């Protein structure tokens, strides 16, 4: 197991290396990173010259890549192209925890709800509940995330305007004076609730379908029949013998989802103005700050690679039929 993890970690290095090259060269092929700045009448020639010099923009592109890679590894991505005074890593350090709070909340709840729906659908196959759950998940797959976010925002804004009850906040991460300790976290939860609901819908749709399929497969297997035959109560058969084995694929999928969502909640975060990875990325794109964009893409690619690895390791850990050597 340990050798497997070490081997996979070593294998991740060339993958990330290739990803960095792909990111760097495609961003640079797409255009001159200073194109917008050069059109800005307020930017003096001296400023542009300084930026070009600092980031070696007049060197051949492979040399530029080498400089960028060195900066990324030794200096945590260095400074943004357009704001030399600040550090990219300081911004990332601020936004990543916000994104993690949202993603953890949404995914944990979605996993619980999705698994419950999936198990019940499988146990009561072709019941009204099963059809309702199927319809719900098809709706979830067909719904644009940003539209759902806006509809929830409209709903809760109107609840507030009409009855003056503040159940959940509809934008931002904290109130102006959230207080300290437990009050801060309650306030934070009230802010994260609607964004989390938005993210949850698609995940619940996905997990419940997965869970239903794998549960149906397990329920018809021999060892479940054996468990029934030896007289175990149905509840125990379902929860102890069937559920634990049916969970295996869902756990893997959720680990993959988790990695993808670190950079995949862009829309939700920007609609609710959550100061996470998403709004930071969109801001960098609007400024056309290529160095921030590349740093962001590297962080999210690393997250995907890391959670792929976690998914594979988890898979080997929870499924005794799979042994890595």
């Amino acid at each position, binding site marked *: 197991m340990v050798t497997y993890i070490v081997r996979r970690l070593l294998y991740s290095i060339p993958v990330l290396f*290739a990803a960095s090259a792909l990111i760097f060269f495609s961003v640079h092929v797409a255009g001159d990173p200073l194109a917008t700045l050069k059109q800005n009448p307020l930017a003096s020639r001296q400023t542009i010259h300084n930026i070009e010099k600092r980031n070696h923009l007049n060197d051949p592109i492979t040399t530029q890549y080498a400089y960028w890679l060195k900066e990324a590894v030794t200096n945590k991505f260095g400074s943004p192209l357009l704001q030399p005074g600040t550090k990219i890593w300081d911004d990332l350090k601020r936004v990543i925890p916000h994104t993690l709070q949202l993603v953890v909340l949404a995914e944990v709840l979605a996993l619980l709800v999705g698994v419950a729906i999936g198990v019940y659908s499988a146990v009561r196959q072709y019941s009204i509940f099963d059809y309702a759950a199927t319809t719900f998940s098809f709706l979830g797959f067909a719904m644009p995330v940003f*539209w759902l976010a806006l509809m929830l925002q409209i709903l809760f804004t109107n609840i507030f305007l009409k009855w003056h009850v503040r159940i959940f906040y509809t934008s931002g991460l904290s109130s102006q004076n959230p207080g300290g300790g437990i009050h801060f976290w309650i306030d934070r939860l009230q802010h994260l609730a609607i964004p989390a609901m938005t993210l949850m819908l698609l995940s619940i749709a996905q997990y419940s379908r997965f869970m239903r399929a794998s549960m149906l497969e397990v329920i018809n297997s021999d060892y479940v029949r054996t468990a029934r035959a030896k007289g175990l109560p149905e509840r125990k058969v379902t929860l102890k013998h069937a559920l634990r084995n049916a969970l295996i694929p869902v756990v893997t999928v959720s680990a993959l989802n988790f990695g993808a969502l670190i950079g995949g909640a862009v829309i939700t975060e920007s609609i609710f103005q959550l100061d996470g990875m998403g709004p930071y990325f969109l801001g960098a794109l*609007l400024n056309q700050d290529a160095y921030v964009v590349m740093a962001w893409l590297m962080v999210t690619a690393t997250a995907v690679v890391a959670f792929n690895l976690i998914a594979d390791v988890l898979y080997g850990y929870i499924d005794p039929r799979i042994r890595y050597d």
Partner: protein
Amino acid sequence: MTETRLDDGDPEFPVVGAGLDTATISPATPGAVTVADLPDGIDLVHETGLELKSRSQWAYARRRFFRHRLAMVSLVVLAVILLAGVFAPLITPYSFAAQDFAHSGQAPTFKAHHYFGTDVLGRDYFSRVVYGIRTSAKVALIVMLVSTIVGTIIGAVAGYYTGWIDNVLMRFTDLILTLPGLAVLLTAAAFLGTGNPIRVAFILAFLFWTGLARIVRGSFLSLREKEYVEAAKAAGSGDLRIMFRHMLPNAVGPIVVNATLIVGIAILTEAALSFLGFGIQPPNPSLGKLIADGEDVSSTMWWLVTFPGLTIVLIVLCINFIGDGLRDALDPTQRRTRA
């Protein structure tokens, strides 16, 4: 063994549909068996005069699809929506840019034909939505064609040749899958420039071929071991002919299903890009942009957000149901749990 297998020619258990040796289907009892129940390849025409068409695999797939009620209903609904988009100038009461100042900010009403209401500038949202369907459909169709062709070719080449070609192509595919999709699209759109529906479509297609390439590679890996491929090789057929003339028709089921589902994903993604301001630009109307336009006033003028969104949901829902029906029709061995 006490278990009796019914289909191994036991004369006591004649089974309808077990094969050519179903001797009990005699012309003397024509009412017992309907034509549709007979399996492929039984020729009763000469003996009984019954009209019996021999059906190809495709005919069977078509019949299974037409019997999938949900998919058929979805097909009809989708056709209506798309036709509305195609004939937009004929059916919309207003042009998508026309302003009706007397009814600006109007909630949905049948008066003055503002079925979906109007925005602050008095533009009719029903007309704008119908024109938006047109743009979305155009983008989605191009994405489907380009990504299906690219994905099929890359998957076919990787699966047919295997070895280092396969390795290089698949590692490249994995690499693209590592990058967060929406972020790559946003980056491409921000630096390449956007606005034109066709350019947006090609940017989307760049990402969407990966899933299909993996599927096609998988089926080609198993198909290349089949005897008919060996026979074609022995007969001197070239690689291209074997790949696209002999193997591709046998891998076409998953490709069709995937192409259908890509249309839905493309519509959702294009809407998201346009919503964020990196997709289709005005004056081209697009469903995502319409929702973005309504965002600022969403708490008071709810209809501006609601109707374009519902249209997207309806279109994608229909496409997914059709995809589901196609999957059941084209791949009966993998029939999923659905009554």
